[in-house]
């Protein structure tokens, strides 16, 4: 159970990215966050694992206050929260398996990891994660030699290495060819069915309908909607995205 309470983030530039946002995420949910670019989706996701420190408000994970966690505890929290990014955020020049192994950094002996040494069982675990996303054969390729869809699968394999209880996915399919969207989201759906809570920001309404068990919508940093995906019809969509918005259907592309 993840409780987000009165979360507010003001950047040093004065931009208010989040204004008093509160909602709960139950274990095992596939929660989708929607909203325009700049509505605060990325800031919200990054506040959950404190890549960004919120200005005020609290986030509780079960009974732990994430926002108050000291550095060592924060690292222990982070290693249980996998993250998948819009731009994949792989180290392009490193091999695929090194990228995947780096998901394990929170668990292994820090000194050995600094030397670049990985125990055999961790390597096996990395290969298994890659197998789950279907690209075990690419393990020793350079990350930037892979296509966008494959790179995002490496990103998911890296998150899997953390044995996460929660996966944060920040627009995981926005940089991909729309026809690849389903293949990536199906992996997340599969993980969700195995019990991992997924919090994912998305753009396409039909993807929201297809995958979300619940939806939170942000507009200018304010939560404007919380409910089931089916409740979002065209009228609601226009309300969230503004009058000029036109729904683009991924399936029709």
């Amino acid at each position, binding site marked *: 159970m993840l409780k987000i309470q009165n979360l507010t983030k003001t950047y040093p530039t004065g931009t208010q990215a989040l204004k008093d946002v509160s909602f709960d995420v139950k274990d095992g949910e596939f929660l989708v966050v929607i909203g325009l670019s700049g509505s605060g989706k990325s800031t919200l996701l990054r506040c959950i694992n404190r890549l960004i420190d919120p200005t005020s408000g609290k986030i509780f994970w079960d009974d732990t206050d994430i926002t108050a966690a000291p550095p060592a505890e924060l690292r222990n*929290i982070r290693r249980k929260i996998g993250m998948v*990014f819009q731009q994949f955020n792989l180290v392009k020049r490193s091999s695929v398996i090194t990228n995947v192994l780096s998901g394990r950094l929170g668990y292994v002996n820090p000194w050995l*990891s600094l030397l670049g040494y990985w125990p055999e069982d961790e390597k096996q675990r990395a290969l298994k994660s890659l197998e789950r996303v279907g690209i075990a054969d690419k393990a020793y390729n350079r990350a930037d030699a892979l296509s966008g869809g494959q790179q995002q699968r490496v990103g998911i394999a890296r998150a899997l290495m953390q044995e996460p209880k929660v996966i944060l996915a920040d627009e995981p399919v926005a940089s991909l060819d729309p026809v690849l969207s389903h293949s990536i989201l199906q992996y997340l759906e599969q993980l969700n069915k195995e019990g991992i809570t997924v919090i994912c920001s998305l753009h396409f309404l039909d993807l929201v309908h297809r995958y979300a068990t619940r939806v939170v919508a942000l507009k200018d940093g304010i939560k404007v909607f919380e409910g089931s995906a089916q409740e979002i019809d065209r009228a609601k969509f226009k309300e969230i995205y503004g009058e000029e918005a036109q729904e683009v259907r991924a399936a029709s592309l």
Partner: protein
Amino acid sequence: MPDRTASNFQLGMSGFLSALIPGLGQFIRGQRYRGVSILLGFLVMLATVYWYANPIWYASPIAIWLWNIWDAMSPRARSILLPVFFGLIAAYSIGWRVVGIDFSKASLSRAVAIVRPMLRPDFIQAKREHNAMWVNVQVPCSPEPPTAIREDAGRTATVIPNCGPVGETMIVSVSGMWPNAQTNVVWQNPIGNPMMLGEGEISMLVLTTDDTGSLTTAIRVPSTALVAAPDPTLPQFHRVYFDQYRPIGGYELSYIGNEVLKGALTTVAMALIATALAIIFAIPISFLAARNLMSGNPITYAIYVVMRTLLNILRSIESLIVAIVFVVIVGLGPFAGALALAVHSVAALAKLYSEVIEGIDPGPIEAIRATGATWTQTVRYAVIPQIIPPFTAFTIYRWDINVRSATIVGFVGGGGIGFLLIELVRVNNMRGVSAVFIAIAIIVITLDTISSRIRERLV
């Protein structure tokens, strides 16, 4: 072009003003930039012709002046192609004079004298063995001169008479040498300097032994035999040498060839040490000169600006000039050259490194932090993999440049192959010079190929 609608009177007026001061008409009609440019162009051209050129080139400023009046009197602005054309013609012809292009001083015979030996680089020579025999002879005579006969390993050399003053004719003979072989007959003074005995004492006396390995010839005691003697009246022993050489098959490095190899090795090593020294200083400096790291607060930003300025100044000083300074400080030799290269490389590498740091992708850093990694793990897995390959590529590239520069800093005493080259040029040893040229070309091409291969792989 802006429209300059105006009455005939106004056009005439502006033409008149431009005739008085070029560009004034245009300036008054609102084309200020154009007016100022015309005036400046006209003045620069006038001054150049006045200072340097033949009076005929006054045609150029005059042409610009006329065009300027025409332009001022036209309702619409005229193309500037014409005055640019006049200006360029004048600039090129004045440039020609300043450079002093003059082929009348060129000499084909001098060119041939230089180039012909260069076609035979002095790098290797046929292996040969040496058969040398000598005999003492006293110059000038003492009251009781020793006999000028010497026997050694079945060979006998004699001089008759056994002593004499400078210019004395002597009969020298030798036996037991290799038969039918070319033999150099050379005079050697007491301090070991060889002197030639051929025609006019400027050529080698070369003779051939007979079937039994003997030869006899008349020589004159060289006029310079006593030049180095502290007291020319003091009798001293000089030597007459008989030298024979014969090939024994195969080739070996010549003396110069050996020096070239040593110089090449020194040069590459100089570049290596200079680059290594530069890396040590450039890495910390590059972090201070990276905008993205330093623009956080005014103090670090000030450090950034100071660092960048220092690096730019340092980079603008050619390593040849720095080498002159270091030759004075640490003395002649490769160390001075390496230090000079290092100074320039620090500036160049620090700038390249800092640009790598500025171009780092923050995405992987955020991703690694999100896995629960510590700060050091984040640096190790997100920052270092991003900067090491370009750092290495730039460093190898710099080493490549340093090898080229290392050949040049030798000219001012910085050691290595450049030093050898300037020495060979001074003694007019063109065969050696061409061996050095070839060695430099091979080094540069080899390193260039290797470094570009490695860089292709890294980036």
